[in-house]
């Protein structure tokens, strides 16, 4: 049992060290691709903690990404970069705690559309606040360089991978998965269902907030429509479904697959890319419900 944790820590350390070499060896393009990959891994791992483990599928994870970015914009210039990132994570965690209790009473598909509606509501509220302040998009000059953002997102990706790993193997994680299988039964067994769900929601909101805060400085431009884009939420869900499962490997497989597709298609054929992504989601839900991770695991079992 302990050996497994050591092996995981070793693998994670090797992966982080390998990624840390990218800014030293590669150019801006390589850093950009690796940054993109790490961002999606971080976002999807945090989604897994809530949605794959409890079965409460969130289609509004972009709300935390966008809210974190907005906190960074508001702190920009008055706080150091790293401190703003932490403040953003604390703020989105608090946001999740505040809205979590009423939202998580709503179940199944209603929860799914509720999260989507919530993300849209926050987006329009931010747009209106910005319009009220007389701001229409903000320029953020003098922020950290690409390599610095990369290292921050690398740390966040490692953090979110570790959170998924330990939650999945903890008492708390067993409780969450019991809620997914049968909420009433879980409650009868003494699991504090409401508290577990809200904690998972808050836990899954912190990393996206910090990632959003770091990523907004990459473009040096803040535009609410881009940062609260529902496509972000949709992409997270697609990565998780394509990758499959409620553990660490799924989002990593899914993110590699998606970033490859993005590199090939996004720049020249964005609509074709979105159509393919939608098609893949349909195909995986219907044909491969356990995702790439499930297929790989089945293949490895069959070789033994």
């Amino acid at each position, binding site marked *: 049992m302990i050996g497994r944790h050591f092996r995981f820590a070793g693998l994670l350390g090797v992966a982080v060290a390998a990624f840390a070499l990218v800014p030293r060896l590669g150019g801006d393009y390589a850093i950009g691709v690796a940054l993109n990959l790490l961002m999606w891994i971080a976002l999807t791992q945090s989604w897994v903690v809530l949605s794959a483990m409890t079965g409460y599928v969130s*289609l509004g994870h972009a709300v935390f990404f966008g809210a974190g970015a907005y906190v960074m914009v508001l702190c920009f210039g008055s706080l150091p970069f790293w401190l703003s990132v932490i403040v953003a994570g604390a703020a989105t965690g608090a946001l999740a705690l505040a809205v979590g209790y009423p939202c998580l009473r*709503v179940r199944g598909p209603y929860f799914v559309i509720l999260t989507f509606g919530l993300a849209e509501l926050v987006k329009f509220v931010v747009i209106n606040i910005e319009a009220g302040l007389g701001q229409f998009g903000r320029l953020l000059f003098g922020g950290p360089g690409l390599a610095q953002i990369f290292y921050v997102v690398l740390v966040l990706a490692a953090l979110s991978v570790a959170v998924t790993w330990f939650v999945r193997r903890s008492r708390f994680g067993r409780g969450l998965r019991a809620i997914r299988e049968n909420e009433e039964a879980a409650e009868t067994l003494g699991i504090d269902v409401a508290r577990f769900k809200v904690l998972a929601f808050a836990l899954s909101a912190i990393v996206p907030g910090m990632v959003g805060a770091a990523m907004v400085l990459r473009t040096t431009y803040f535009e609410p429509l881009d940062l609260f884009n529902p496509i972000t939420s949709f992409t997270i869900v697609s990565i998780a479904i394509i990758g499959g499962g409620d553990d660490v490997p799924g989002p990593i497989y899914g993110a590699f697959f998606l970033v490859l597709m993005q590199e090939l298609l996004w720049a020249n054929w964005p609509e074709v890319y979105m159509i393919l992504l939608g098609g893949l989601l349909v195909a995986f*839900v219907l044909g491969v419900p356990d995702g790439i991770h499930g297929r790989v695991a089945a293949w490895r079992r069959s070789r033994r």
Partner: protein
Amino acid sequence: MIDLFSGQLLIAALVLAAIYGLVALGLNLIYGTMRLLNVAHGEILMLGGYLAYWTFTLTGVGPVWSMFLALALAGAFGAAVYRTLCRRVLRSSRLIEQIEANSLLLLFGVSIILQNAVALSFTATARAYPYLDDIVRIGTFQVTADRLVVLGIGLALSLAAILFFRLSATGLQIRALIQQPDAALLVGVDVERMRLIAFSLGFAIAGVAGCLISMLEQVSPFMGFPFTIAAFVVIILGGLGNLAGGLAGALVLAAIEVYGVALTTASMRSILIYGVFIAVLVWRPQGLFGGRSLVR
């Protein structure tokens, strides 16, 4: 100061209510009969809008006629989607909650495909066409003729739907399926056939609603989702699976939207819709008129 009692606002609210009522009717029908939340509903509406736009632009035939084409095509498309995708989910999954979550992701994928396929074919530019835009004076207020036509057709279709579900054998069987699925099966309702009909009918109504909306608003590939959300608000207000309650819900939402925007600014419109949506889901998921609850 705005005159809240003006006929102008009243007409605007009624027209919007007729549209919302129609969009929500289709969504409610599909939800009621098979517990599928059709998030691609707004995209069917968008396709109906494009059909009306192109028919008018290319042949000069107005939406009042292309509506029938939309009815047939959207109905056929609905039957195809049900046969190829939804029936497999309904069969394969074990738990009812899993069916709901899976079908939602499935239909979400379909809606992304439709949006981007239309954007790829016709570009993302919003399009509009002039049709029946001369002004009609009734008493002291003025209204464009297209709004009156939309209101008339919307009311006629809603009335026809209510009669269909009260009087025809098929309509009664579908209602039986909505109210008591197991009992309906026991008394010999052909569940599979009724589901197919309900699905196809739901899509057909959405296609017609799209034609009507294209007379008043610009069509664009991404116009559908706000209507899907509005339709969700309406059916939750009126009670899930309660077809007549939906019409009352449509009036409530349309009034909130029209008078809310009149009291504030146009930029508040999205906040109002999504705000009502969340408030209703969180605080009153059983609807205004009672009925089944979504919360334990």
